[in-house]
């Protein structure tokens, strides 16, 4: 008896719900189709897998963007975010990109966290003529722009950072440096960029020593560097190896300045070695020192707002360079959509191309990563204003005024 009653009730309420929602849909659909076009951004991030440490903050920033933008009613258009996880797997990134293009009818694909995934989807986005904004660091993703017309990226390049660092070294009277880096793709990439920059600036690269992420002993290489009679050592690695390399140099009695690449510009660098890395000079992004840069810097309000939003949502002091990569990518896409030359229509193919053209017209756009000036030949669009040098003082990244 009771059973039939319950069943009957469920059936009635289900019927009621379905009819109600279909009426609501029927009313709503033509409504916004008429007055507000929709911008659909597919964000494909490596939330799991090997790059999850980078992907997690990126996903958080995407969610934050979704929360703040999807609900806005003051815009002449609507924003819809489609979120996927590629599991740090390039094959999966490709199939998810296809899905975003064909099923979700996205206008922009924000992908991917890693360089291999970003490289893997290049052909797919080129064939579909859809704008892709990568969050990976390698310059090869966007270069040359003539071959990758639909590909853009947000993180600054090693080259810009190295130019800034080496120019600073030169002003400090440093003539002879040693490279101390990881022997994987990251370290080798840094060395390859360092060689031409050193030649250009006029600094001699007198020694190169390598180590691996899993090494237990960094002293022998550090001894070698010490004996090479260098003015400074440049470490291109990520924590904890960057910390251990730094400590090894100090242990063997090397007293000269020690510089670090952007790989060390995360809080873990200080957390691991604590007082042992005091005095290290680290190339950082604007976000690391956002409360210290000049108040008239166009980046400052953008950074402060992002840091406030992000810390407000995820806890104080959580804001992280990688969260900035996806945040900039999402906002660049919105900015391009807002500034399209053509009228906003529901024509998918035309809108995709219009967004790409508008991306290339981005001028003096302040993001978390720096000021973007994207052109048809430069699809990164950042300049030296995206890089800063800092020194570790009292466990903090303290901006070096130049």
């Amino acid at each position, binding site marked *: 008896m009771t059973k039939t009653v319950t069943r009957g009730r469920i059936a009635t309420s289900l019927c009621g719900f379905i009819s109600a929602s279909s009426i609501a849909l029927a009313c709503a659909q033509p409504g916004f189709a008429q007055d507000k076009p929709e911008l659909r951004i597919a964000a494909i991030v490596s939330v799991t897998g090997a790059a*999850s*440490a980078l992907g997690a903050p990126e996903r958080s920033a995407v969610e934050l963007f979704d929360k703040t933008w999807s609900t806005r009613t003051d815009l002449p258009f609507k924003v819809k975010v489609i979120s996927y996880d590629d599991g740090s797997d390039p094959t999966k990134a490709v199939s998810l990109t296809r899905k975003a293009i064909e099923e979700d009818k996205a206008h922009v694909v924000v992908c991917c966290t890693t360089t291999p995934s970003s490289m893997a989807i290049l052909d797919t986005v080129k064939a579909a003529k859809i704008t892709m904004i990568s969050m990976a660091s390698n310059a090869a993703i966007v270069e040359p722009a003539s071959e990758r017309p639909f590909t853009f990226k947000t993180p600054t390049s090693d080259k810009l950072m190295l130019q800034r660092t080496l120019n600073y070294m030169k002003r400090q009277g440093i003539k002879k440096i040693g490279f101390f880096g990881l*022997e994987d793709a990251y370290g080798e990439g840094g060395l390859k960029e360092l060689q031409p920059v050193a030649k250009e600036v006029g600094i001699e690269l007198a020694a190169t*020593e*390598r*180590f*691996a*992420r*899993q*090494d*237990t*002993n960094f*002293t*022998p*290489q550090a*001894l*070698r560097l010490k*004996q090479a009679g260098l003015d400074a050592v440049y470490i291109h690695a990520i*924590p*904890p190896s960057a*910390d*251990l390399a730094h400590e090894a140099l100090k*242990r*063997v*009695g090397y007293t000269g300045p020690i510089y670090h690449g952007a790989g060390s510009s995360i809080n*873990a660098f200080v*957390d*691991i*070695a*604590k007082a042992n890395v005091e005095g290290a000079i680290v190339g950082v992004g604007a976000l690391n020192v956002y409360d210290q840069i000049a108040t008239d810097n166009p980046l400052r309000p953008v950074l402060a707002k992002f840091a406030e939003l992000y810390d407000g949502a995820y806890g104080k002091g959580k804001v992280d360079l990688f969260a900035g990569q996806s945040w900039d990518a999402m906002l660049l896409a919105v900015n391009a959509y807002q500034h399209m030359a053509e009228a906003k229509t529901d024509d998918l193919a035309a809108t995709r191309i219009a967004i790409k053209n508008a991306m290339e017209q981005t001028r003096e756009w302040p993001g978390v990563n720096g000021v973007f000036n994207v052109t048809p030949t430069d699809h990164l669009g950042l300049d030296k204003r995206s890089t800063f040098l800092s020194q570790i003082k009292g466990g903090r990244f303290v901006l070096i005024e130049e």
Partner: protein
Amino acid sequence: MFDTLLFLLVDGITNGAVYGLVALSLIVIYTVTRVVNIAQGEYVTLGALSFSSALSGSFNLFSWLVAGGLAAFALLDLADRRLLSSVRIRILLIRSVWIAGVLLTAFAAHKFPGSYWLAVLAALAATVSLGTLTYRLTVEPVSGASPIVLLIVSVGVYMVFHGVAVLIWGAEPQSVPPVVDGGVSLGPVFITYQSLWICGFAVLAMAGLYMFSERTLIGQALQATAVNRVGAQLCGIPVRFAGQLSFAIGAGFSAVSGLLLAPLITANYDMGFPIGLKGFVAAALGGIVEYPTALVGVVLVGLTESFSAFQISAFRDVIVFLMVIPILLWRNAVRPPEAHEH
């Protein structure tokens, strides 16, 4: 030049001591169970990580997992119908004390965060128990299989441990404080007290193991099992127990080497594997059976690594692992493999 030499010597020996503990573990396990344990390095990782989380006062999932595993096997043993009730009570008592030991040490470390020796105890109780669990779960069911099967099984164990370490502790490296801060200056060379602890413990462990296997009945039983399994079984030595004990000793030594090494290089989920491999190279010099030759091996590996890193840093691992080839050739010439067992 002399400074450099001294530096390289000291570091080579410190690293050699770490590899030595792992090599020792490998030998104990191989001689008794014939398992070439690829997963040995993972005990280094697990020791370091569980120590680091115990020290920070978090009651880690790892101790729960191990205690759960012990409880499951205790139930399995109790379910055996042929047992006398007195034996059953004894099993019940021993196992409950054991499980309580794992959980209590973890709980004590949780209650007194920052207490160094309690954290060591908690980490050791968990990893040593994990060693016996691993033996029961993966080696015992196939104990009659050929060494190659056992080797492949240990590869599987390695993969599981590696994944579990990431799951429980995440990929971020954790910094670990040393036993005693600071160090001494030996002329121009600064030696941290931690390095001295590592060397000291390695020497103690080796001496202890020697005394144990020469002077105690259990040690003699282990040796007997190592020499001839079937014979030992016929003499009434419980081979199963010997296997568990060898895995426990192996896991314990490796875990200690991990938690002593962690302050020098931070504790992280993939620190163990290369250490395990280098320990293997050293143990290979003694054919994974002779302790004294393996000792020479670890010093050799430690120094080769240190000096090759100084000379050509890009090739240091290549040189260390290439050493296996001359070592094996030398062993074959000096001591041709006999067709032992079966």
